[in-house]
């Protein structure tokens, strides 16, 4: 075998792994109720592919080959351990299936069940996103740990613990009844957490991008495929696509941060904006407004600049007011203040900031960035400098820090 053949096989394995990982893990774990076992079996199969495929050629249907190989290793494991489990009927099903045509590809897509398991109420909410990234997309603990600012070892241990709880805690691989669909919110939250903070409508607010935007959008698309009629799923996708559309405009050629109001709309991605608008329009047909649709609507108002229109700040104020009525988080109140300052005058925005709870904003960077901006506009220079210092000191992104240092003067 020549070196290039080896690389070709490697690339095929990587491609199949990327495209089918979640489907394969979902299918295998639904039958065994054992997520960690399914992942182990699949990674074993992927390793085996790297030695067998270069020798025997890439099978006609690589996905089916991986499924059969992983399934056999699970069955072997159970036989070897002579484990009698509740899942035995399922295991039997898995065994029976293996006698069928090994090239079958029409195995059911069980990823929705897997998403509900990852965001199950019995699992620590902080682990919902890492579990999804690993189980559905196959990301390793080291990559996930960087995005969530914990050590790789700790992230690995937390993932193992969560998976043990899934296996031993009787967490069922199922889609909850319609009445329990509040559990969908946990999935949406977890996907959004992978995206990082999406908005950039407050100048100088630290973005905390997790570098997982693509993965989050992928997860949202998987979810939408499985739940095409859920307004909030569409809303979440619309929100993320609007934010993603501005990626290229957020930094200038020298890598400096450009606030939304100074971004050149010509640098925004029109196809992404249009896709976002389509999802948002589709969502509104169901008459079930929600948090993500409102947040997407705010970004949609900003996106009007791409069509040469002015930003309708009054509309943004209304959307933030609705979000605050749902739940008055400090992020929403800060966004409301920033929008009100544009719509009704700087003093009104500042009054909202003044009314907020001092303790809860003390380490909240966007609050200080907006506050500094408004104070500076009112000519209250000394107070503005103080607020700028707080915003700079709390910023993590060096580009934001530089921007604020310059504004502070």
């Amino acid at each position, binding site marked *: 075998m020549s070196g290039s053949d080896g690389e070709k096989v490697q690339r095929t394995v990587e491609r199949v792994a990327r495209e089918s990982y979640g489907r394969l893990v979902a299918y295998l774990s639904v039958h065994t109720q054992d997520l960690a076992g399914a992942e182990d079996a699949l990674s074993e199969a992927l390793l085996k592919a790297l030695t067998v495929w270069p020798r025997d050629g890439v099978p006609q249907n690589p996905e089916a080959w991986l499924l059969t190989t992983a399934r056999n290793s699970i069955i072997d494991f159970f036989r070897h351990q002579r484990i009698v489990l509740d899942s035995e009927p399922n295991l039997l099903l898995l065994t029976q299936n293996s006698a069928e045509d090994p090239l079958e590809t029409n195995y059911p897509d069980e990823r929705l069940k897997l998403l509900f398991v990852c965001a199950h109420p019995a699992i620590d909410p902080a682990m919902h996103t890492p579990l999804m990234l690993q189980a559905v997309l196959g990301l390793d603990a080291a990559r996930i740990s960087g995005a969530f600012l914990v050590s790789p070892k700790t992230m690995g241990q937390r993932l193992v613990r969560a998976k043990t709880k899934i296996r031993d805690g009787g967490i069922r691989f199922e889609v909850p009844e319609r009445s329990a669909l509040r559990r969908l919110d946990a999935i949406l939250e977890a996907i959004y957490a992978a995206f990082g903070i999406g908005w950039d409508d407050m100048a100088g607010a630290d973005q905390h991008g997790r570098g997982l935007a693509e993965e989050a959008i992928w997860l949202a698309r998987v979810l939408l495929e499985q739940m095409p009629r859920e307004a909030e799923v569409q809303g979440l996708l619309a929100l993320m696509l609007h934010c993603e559309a501005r990626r290229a405009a957020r930094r200038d050629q020298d890598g400096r941060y450009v606030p939304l109001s100074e971004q050149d709309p010509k640098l925004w991605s029109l196809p992404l904006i249009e896709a976002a608008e389509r999802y948002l329009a589709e969502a509104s047909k169901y008459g079930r407004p929600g948090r993500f649709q409102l947040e997407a609507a705010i970004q949609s108002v900003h996106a009007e600049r791409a069509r040469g229109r002015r930003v309708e700040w009054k509309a943004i104020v209304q959307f933030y007011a609705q979000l605050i009525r749902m739940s008055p988080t400090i992020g929403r109140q800060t966004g409301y203040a920033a929008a009100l300052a544009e719509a009704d005058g700087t003093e009104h925005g500042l009054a909202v900031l003044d009314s907020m709870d001092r303790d809860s904003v*003390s*380490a909240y960077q966007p609050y200080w960035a907006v506050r500094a901006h408004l104070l500076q506009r009112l000519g209250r220079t000394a107070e503005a400098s103080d607020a700028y210092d*707080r915003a*700079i*000191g709390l*910023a993590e992104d060096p580009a934001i*820090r530089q921007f604020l240092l310059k504004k502070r003067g």
Partner: protein
Amino acid sequence: MKFALLIYESPDAFASRKGDGSDAYTGAWRAYHKALVESDVFVGGDPLEVPETGTTIKVKDGKRGVQDGPYADTKEQLGGFTIIEVPSLDAALEWAARCPAASYGAVEVRPLAPETRRRIVE
């Protein structure tokens, strides 16, 4: 819990300290210090002089060994330390990520050892 943030800086970063106080390096550090104090997590800490000013002492078999410069011969050197008091390691890592050195050098987060301290001090 108390944690030490050990700040490692490159020679470039040490060189940029020489500004008049209105430079970006000092501005970022001043703001970070202020945020730590105002958020009530700052316990103590100081910047250190440049590594070349260090002198390293070892006493072996009764003989004194003296070496110019810092103990560890690495490109990035200890440039200062900050002690913070926060509820958890997660919170300490958040503060470390905001530290200016995290984006141009490195910040090591280490828990203080209160048990060991107690055994020594009491």
